[in-house]
């Protein structure tokens, strides 16, 4: 099954995306709200504090939460309009069953559960436990992430559980673990305010982490900090940067190896720190020695002069902070790119000190906490390793199961789709994940979904992926449940419940508990009466792991406006800055240098496909757009994707601003309007990815994965372009 029951247009007519422009009751609605709920924004890893105004069980507006220390009331437009996702006409209000020819037909919860459980049991008995997979997402709270990890392993007994963080944080996570023995931003953002030099690599801070802009600007204001931006585009954060390194997509590790080589040659490294607190430097030094500026200029397209200036500034800086994000991580060598950055930081010893640090910027709401607590196919709660016998033993004990019954390492998100396509995985339960938009090669993804024997989806809107489900279970929005979340800084914060789920919709965790019960596994879950119960078990499960939450309680979070993990005991204040005094988390206590050799990207530029394509976000949309494409103000600002190109490139193809352009890769084709601007490398085009169907640039991207992190290579594809028609305006 798992096909669309009726024509797509009919589905859109009923389930949207429709645009909501006004709060419930309209703009003119009078009167004070019943309550003001202090919670957080759901639309990115910064997790800004926000106050939601509630009236008659509906969120009717927002107030800035000026005393919350991270954002002090500041919000991007997604934050301002986040409340519009509630009381939405597209909201799923009762369980639906996909009936071919009829559409999505209302059904009862009992019938929906029965069907789901019966299909899980049928598929697992027929094809084996691992033939039923779970896909999850990190817009979910820590509690739900933990619950789903336990649910998949204990109730479903499947190894194949993975999550949409696979498209986000995994390269950084893997790199961090290799280098530091722990996966978290090295510092709280407070250290950005104390630094002298900020290097942003592959991070469009101004659009994807807008509040971080304030920290960077303040460092420039008060300390005269310099800013270096590594990006193929001049993003708003890059526009006034002191130095832009306009790197060619996919060549980051070459740039960082060369930079490291230059500072080693100039003697601008901290030999003491390297000797005392790190391992493996000599091998790296030997490797980077062959990375010359001339070669780097040829490969990366960054002018030699700029490379030298960057190395000089970084080498001579007293304090420095390196930030990176998906721009360097979405590659088949994502982990390598991350490691090349970390090598560059470690060589100067400027980490774990005031104003000295390193961080990756989490993209997804709970990208940080979600991956720590076990819906990642290779991890157990507390950032434990599912292949480590000791870790397995500990978690089995916490969960009350035999270690032998705990499934092993499963497949990553893209690999699960590959196996579904290959007919090996037959059933799927998914929540909070819209792979039809967000995974590469969407034609392949659609084919895979259509091959499923059974697919159950939990969501609040009927996402493009959910349209393929046999059973759709209406879950909860961010503001309809309570719990905790962990921000990009590693700050654990509280999400407060503002309203109840509307109609028959349920809070997500109730759905998992009921399915577990019906699968006969109630005894492992029945003690969960509320999210705090789950959090308390999570605390124990994470105890002794690197991501240790044991000392964090709901009360403590409320009192301190967040607590930074690791926080191993109740009297521990939390750890805003990691790696102080050169203490790292490998058994040897040291940070590890890792040898990185530059490798070309998976897709090949040639005469037929001569142009680099890179993809990314716009500020008005979030991830697969399931939420933001339904919010009027946001969608109005950027209703459609476009293809950004330099006038030199456009001229070569006779393209003018607004013309219709066909872009073709080895996977597929899309037609988009051209945006001809001087703010992008002349050999590269950029397309934002938040849309589905014919507007989806992920029809063109490829399923090539990083061998370690299994992240797909979104940031570099080889394409060709041609003009289809003139600007119609």
């Amino acid at each position: 099954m798992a096909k669309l029951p009726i024509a797509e247009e009919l589905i859109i007519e009923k389930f949207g995306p429709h645009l909501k422009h006004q709060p419930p009751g309209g703009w003119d609605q009078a009167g004070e709200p019943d309550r003001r709920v202090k919670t957080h924004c759901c639309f990115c890893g910064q997790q800004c504090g926000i106050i939601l105004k509630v009236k008659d069980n509906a969120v009717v507006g927002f107030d800035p939460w000026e005393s919350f220390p991270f954002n002090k009331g500041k919000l991007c437009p997604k934050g301002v309009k986040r409340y519009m996702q509630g009381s939405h006409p597209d909201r799923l209000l009762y369980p639906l069953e996909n009936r071919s020819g009829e559409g999505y037909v209302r059904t009862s919860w009992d019938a929906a559960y029965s069907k789901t459980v019966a299909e899980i049991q049928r598929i697992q008995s027929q094809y084996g436990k691992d033939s039923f997979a779970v896909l999850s997402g990190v817009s979910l709270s820590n509690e739900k992430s933990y619950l789903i990890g336990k649910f998949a392993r204990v109730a479903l007994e499947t190894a194949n559980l993975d999550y949409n963080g696979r498209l986000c944080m995994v390269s950084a996570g893997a790199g961090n673990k290799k280098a530091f023995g722990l996966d978290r931003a090295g510092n709280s953002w407070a250290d950005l305010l104390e630094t002298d030099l900020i290097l942003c690599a592959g991070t469009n801070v101004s659009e994807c982490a807008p509040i971080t802009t304030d920290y960077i600007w303040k460092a420039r204001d008060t300390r005269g900090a310099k800013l270096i931006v590594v990006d193929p585009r001049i993003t708003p954060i890059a526009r006034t940067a002191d130095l832009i390194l306009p790197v060619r997509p996919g060549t980051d590790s070459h740039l960082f190896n060369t930079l490291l080589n230059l500072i080693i040659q100039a003697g601008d490294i901290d030999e003491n720190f390297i000797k005392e607190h790190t391992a493996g430097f000599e091998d790296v030094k030997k490797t980077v020695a062959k990375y010359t500026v001339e070669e780097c200029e040829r490969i990366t397209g960054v002018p030699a002069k700029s490379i030298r200036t960057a190395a000089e500034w970084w080498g001579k800086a007293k304090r420095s902070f390196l930030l990176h994000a998906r721009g360097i991580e979405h590659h088949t060598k994502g982990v390598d790119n991350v490691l090349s950055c970390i090598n560059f930081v470690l060589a100067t010893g400027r980490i774990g000190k005031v104003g000295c640090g390193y961080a990756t910027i989490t993209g997804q709401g709970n990208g940080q906490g979600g991956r720590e607590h076990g819906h990642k196919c290779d991890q157990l709660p507390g950032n434990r390793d599912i292949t480590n016998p000791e870790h397995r033993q500990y978690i089995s004990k916490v969960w009350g199961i035999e270690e032998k019954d705990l499934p092993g390492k499963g497949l990553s998100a893209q690999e699960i789709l590959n196996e579904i396509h290959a007919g090996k995985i037959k059933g799927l339960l998914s929540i909070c994940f819209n792979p039809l938009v967000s995974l590469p090669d969407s034609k392949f993804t659609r084919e895979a979904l259509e091959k499923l024997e059974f697919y159950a989806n939990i969501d609040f809107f009927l996402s493009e992926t959910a349209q393929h489900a046999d059973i759709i279970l209406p879950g909860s929005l961010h503001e309809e449940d309570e719990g905790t979340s962990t921000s990009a800084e590693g700050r654990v914060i509280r999400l407060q419940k503002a309203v109840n789920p509307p109609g028959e919709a349920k809070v997500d965790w109730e759905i998992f508990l009921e399915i577990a019960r019906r699968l006969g596994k109630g005894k492992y879950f029945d003690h969960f009466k509320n999210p705090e119960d789950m959090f308390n078990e999570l605390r124990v499960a994470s105890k002794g792991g690197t991501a240790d939450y044991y000392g964090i309680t709901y009360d403590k979070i409320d009192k301190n406006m967040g607590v930074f993990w690791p926080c191993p005991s109740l009297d521990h204040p939390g750890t805003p800055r990691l790696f102080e005094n050169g203490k790292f988390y490998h058994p040897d206590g040291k940070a590890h240098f890792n040898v990185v050799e530059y490798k070309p990207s998976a897709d090949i530029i040639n005469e037929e496909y001569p142009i680099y394509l890179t993809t990314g976000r716009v500020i008005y949309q979030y991830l697969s757009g399931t939420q933001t494409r339904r919010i009027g103000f946001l969608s109005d600002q950027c209703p459609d994707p476009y293809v950004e190109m330099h006038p030199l490139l456009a001229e070569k193809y006779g393209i003018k601003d607004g013309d219709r352009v066909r872009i073709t890769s080895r996977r597929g084709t899309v037609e988009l309007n051209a945006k001809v601007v001087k703010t992008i490398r002349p050999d590269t085009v950029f397309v934002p990815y938040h849309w589905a169907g014919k507007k989806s640039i992920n029809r063109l991207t490829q399923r090539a994965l990083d061998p370690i992190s299994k992240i797909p290579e979104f940031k570099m594809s080889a394409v060709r372009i041609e003009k289809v028609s003139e600007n119609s305006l």
Partner: protein
Amino acid sequence: MFMKLHKEGVLRGLGGVALLSVLIVVGSRKLVYFDAALIPYLIATIFAIFGSIYRYSVWLSRPPTNILWKRSLKLIFSKYFFANAGLVIKAFFENMLLQKFIGRRSPYRWIMHFLLAWGCVLGFAVTFPLVFGWLHFSNPPGHEHMYQLYIFGFPAMIFDPYGFIGYAFFNMLNLCSIMIIIGTVMAFSRRLMHPGDITTQSFAHDLLPLLILFGVAVSGLFLTFSTHYLGGHQYRILSTIHCWTVVAFLVYLPFGKFFHIFQRASQMGAELYIHEKQEGQLAICPKTGEGFTSQVQKDDVKSILRELGFEFEVAHEKFSVQDLSPQARRQLLMTTQHKRLKGKFDIVRE
């Protein structure tokens, strides 16, 4: 406002009062039909008329208002007389009578404002002629059960006081009271509940006029109630209260919020400007190429600014920032800052 007495205003105000006096004497047949009990009303009305004419004169003498008036007349009496006069008549219907633009601001406010506006206008249409002695009734000879209406002392229609027309005549003020009461309650509840209004409203400008209207309407309705159901109980006290509320209204009229009733007429002038922008010659921005207003209105505004002492023109030229479209002006500020900072984040950077 009263720093310097506006001579023309005083003269026009006095003229208005004189004209009214003549009309009262003539209309009431040398005060034969004038009801002495209504003297407080009359005094307040005379004050209101003087005040309103005075203020209107002062207002019209302000350069922008003056130029709008002159421009309106010029546009009406141009070769497009019929088109423009038609436009004004249409605008009068839509904006003054139906007040459609308020509905587009908010349907709730439209209902509220419509009830208040028409409640007042109908009320005046009945009371002023009665106060001035322009209307009176008597029983026509031979038809003792009928009423005859006299206008300016001339006999007009005869009607049955218990028939529809009679009912309508004698209950018109009650209807007005009810309209005003509903309108003021709507306005009050909005002003007390709406967070935006709560913080910006002032007592004198927003709440006082509502209180006065509410007082007039409720005390008026009580008079009817007393007559019909209490056999005139407490009628004198009630009528005194009613009288004072009406006096308060009339005294407030020229200087408070109610003056907008007269000012609203200039909206027809605005309609002519807008029409000119649609049909006439456009002022094109030399930077963005956008036709952002009509040439006529841009010239008018520039001349008002000159008259008021603003010197926006670039030396020796007629060119000023007002020749740029609003969008270009916003770009001007951004560009000026950008250039002065040499495109950098801040000033000390190389």
